[in-house]
């Protein structure tokens, strides 16, 4: 049973790049450091979320409000500084499509490798399925990815990333595929993935999208929950989807 429970979770993001942490500064700095120096940023500030199966949570908020950091915290990329975090279920973080792709490898090799990274043993059947979804020519499987146009590349990466259902789906912005013909299909597949996942968390600036797909919207501001809005069951009219694309 998938579930996410965060209780008063905080995350202090250390600012390594901006600060001189060298040995010299450490030894000498104690003598004449100004008080109140900021070495960390509180990116997530006592957030409590309790998501049960069926939860569709939208994270809204301005840039830098901690949406992506919160998603990464749930995905296990960042350890929480304080608070309790309990997550069960297999998490599929779709935070960026390009992760792990190597442009020098052939498309087929890239797909196999990406599947292995997500913990699956690639089979020819999986490859064929994914390739069928991309609607690209069979022989292009053998070409290195650098030969692909950006649209084709997106097709391959999108098809691979969304090939398997997830218990917990984390989306940083709705994955958009810019190809006119393909995007309807991609939209449909992503929608289906959202429907079949037990818990979905989407971070987005697009309020319309969040309202259509989610049943709870959490507004973040400076890492805190500014407000939580509960919506009725999301309505998914194809008309609305088309509007969104236009």
């Amino acid at each position, binding site marked *: 049973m998938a579930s996410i429970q965060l209780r008063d979770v905080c995350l202090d*993001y*250390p600012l*390594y790049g901006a600060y001189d*942490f*060298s040995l010299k500064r450490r030894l000498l700095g104690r003598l004449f450091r100004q008080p109140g120096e900021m070495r960390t940023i509180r990116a997530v500030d006592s957030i409590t979320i309790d998501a049960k199966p069926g939860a569709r949570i939208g994270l809204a908020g301005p840039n830098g409000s901690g949406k992506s950091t919160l998603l*990464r915290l749930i*995905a*296990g*990329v*960042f*350890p929480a500084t304080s608070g309790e975090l309990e997550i069960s279920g*297999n*998490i599929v*973080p779709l*935070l*960026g499509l*390009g*992760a*792990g792709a*190597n442009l*020098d*490898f052939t498309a087929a*090799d890239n797909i*196999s*490798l990406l599947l*292995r*990274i*997500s*913990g*699956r*043993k690639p*089979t020819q*059947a*999986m490859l064929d*399925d*994914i390739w069928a979804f991309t609607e690209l020519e069979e022989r292009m499987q053998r070409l*290195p990815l650098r030969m692909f146009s950006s649209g084709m590349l997106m097709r391959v990466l999108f098809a691979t990333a969304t*090939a*398997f*259902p997830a218990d917990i789906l984390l989306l940083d912005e709705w994955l958009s595929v810019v190809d006119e013909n393909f995007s309807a299909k991609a939209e449909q597949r992503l929608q289906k993935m959202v429907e*079949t996942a037990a818990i979905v968390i989407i971070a987005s600036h697009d309020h319309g999208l969040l309202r259509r797909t989610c049943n709870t919207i959490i507004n973040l501001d400076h890492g805190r929950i500014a407000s939580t809005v509960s919506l009725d069951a999301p309505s998914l009219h194809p008309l609305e989807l088309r509007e969104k694309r236009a």
Partner: protein
Amino acid sequence: MTMVNELARRPSVLHIFKVYYPDLFGGTLSVIRDICVGLKDSFAAAVLVCSQSGGERRIVVNDVAVERVHSFGDVLSLPAAPTYPWRLWRRIAEHDLLALHAPFPLADLVFAFGFGRRRPLVVHWHADIVSHAALRWFVEPMMRRTLRRAAAIIVSDPVLVENTPLLREFADKCHAVPFGVDVAKYDRPVLRPADVNSRGRLVLACGRLVPYKGFDVLIRAAHSRNFEVWIVGEGRERDQLEQLIRDYGLQDRVRLLGSVPESERVKLMRIADVFVMPSVTNAETFGLVQLEAMAAGRPVINTALDTGVPYVARNGIEAITVPAGDPNALAEAIETLIDDPERRQRMGQAGRHRAMTKYSTTAFKERVETVYRMVVAEEAIAAKDAGSPAPASRPHTAGGLVSAIQIAAALAWSDMRHRYVRSLLGPFWMSIQMAIMVAVLGSVIGHFSNASAVARLPMLAASLTAWTFLNSVVLDATTALQNSASLIKDRALPPVIFLLQCTFRQALFALHNAVVPLILWLALTPRDISGALVALPGLVLFIVCTLALSLVLGALATRYRDIKPIIESSLTLAFLSSPIIWTPEMIDRGSRVMRFNPLTHLFAIWRDPLATGHVPMGSVAYVLTCLAALAVASVVTVAHLRKAAFWI
């Protein structure tokens, strides 16, 4: 294509239990047999069990293929069959559905370790573990894992789910399927009105002679009464029971009939006046045998257990239920029935009616089949959703470290395969490069010493290969995390994967380079294999040290950006100051720097045995000390690697 095949053949079920016909007879076995036979039109059944008899390994019982794994006897009621888990693991892949007849901890062991994850599992819960309660702490977590992984659990009565804490946790997947009995088998050839012998005093009991069946209670109950007791069945308690009968002087009234054929048993059921099931523990979950007695129209006396037993034959209607383990109450109940022929008849008829209406074999068969079909269908749907055939659809979620190593190995393998992409010379350009390096350095070094340059070439090549490995692993590790930033931050992969990847990848490359020393060694030395064998542990130690070093330095170089140039220059310095292309013999042996240099010893522990056949124990001790320190540092590093996402 796969779909058509699926339709054309019956899905196959593997029944997993500890024992099967012809080694033993009993309620659980007859249930398994009934499932195998009853579902043969829709499922192809196979059975995997243990056997002490040492007969044929593969036999056919009632058209069902049975594989019997050799067992050395029972230890704590469990067959001691060391190869059973192995055979089970091998067989899992051949079947579409696994049916585990619990309790059977030997099979739980296989499932607890996560094997057979790719096949749907149905657990037939026949009983809880009641004997050997002291081992519960060990067995229960395994059983829980099995149940968690099961797609469905079949129990014989809903009350079992309420009364078994372990089952309550998984109540949502429990299906109550009461066993069935073929009433027709117990039809009498002629039904006479004087069906019930008014003088009847024959008490029958059936079951394996094991403690939980409570036959000792029945024997005690017979003491100083005047009914006769016949007990059908065989088992390890026989000697004790015989002794008990002798002690009470009941040889004339109490008989142990041993095992009898099924047809004989049916006859005995028909002539008995009272049927008793004196079971004393909750290991008796249902009591198939009392259902058979009901089918034969016999009044039943059973015990008040927390299981389905008193629900199958209900107190005052089909049975008299007495407290378990109470000989007096049991004797009273038997005498009540013996003294009241009319009540016997009434109860017998009620029992037969209940067996016919509530516990039909058809209903049992259909409901088991429904559960099996549902589980197989769910699996097929899951597989279809995943867009792949069933076996590979689930991600392997085995322990974090195992999957980290698997992913690291996959990445390293891919790195190696792509190393030759767009290369001019193909796979072994690295080896050629190594060969050239050895040739050039060898000819130069040859002038330093008076020894033959050619004889030293194999060792030089081996040292260079090893150094290249260590050098590249450490250098790769310093940049590995930054290069994989997107995988760490966007795919949430554990950072340690990418440090392991460096060692794995360079190990694969080193294998290519190793061709050069190998050829030189074969061509130029007397090919003494024993030296090479003694060198192996040292080589393993070398690799482990390299791995630990890469973990520590890789993490440090990512956290503190000035470490990387320091490491680079140190490596060059180390290469020149350590006996890699030269040997300690060439220079003053007393050099203090050389003696304190860990690299000297790291190379000595495998080079010395290779050259001389002797293991330098001093160097081994030195290396082990360094490794201990490195291991501590590695553990600390891996703990801190959780924060690696902040550093990149």
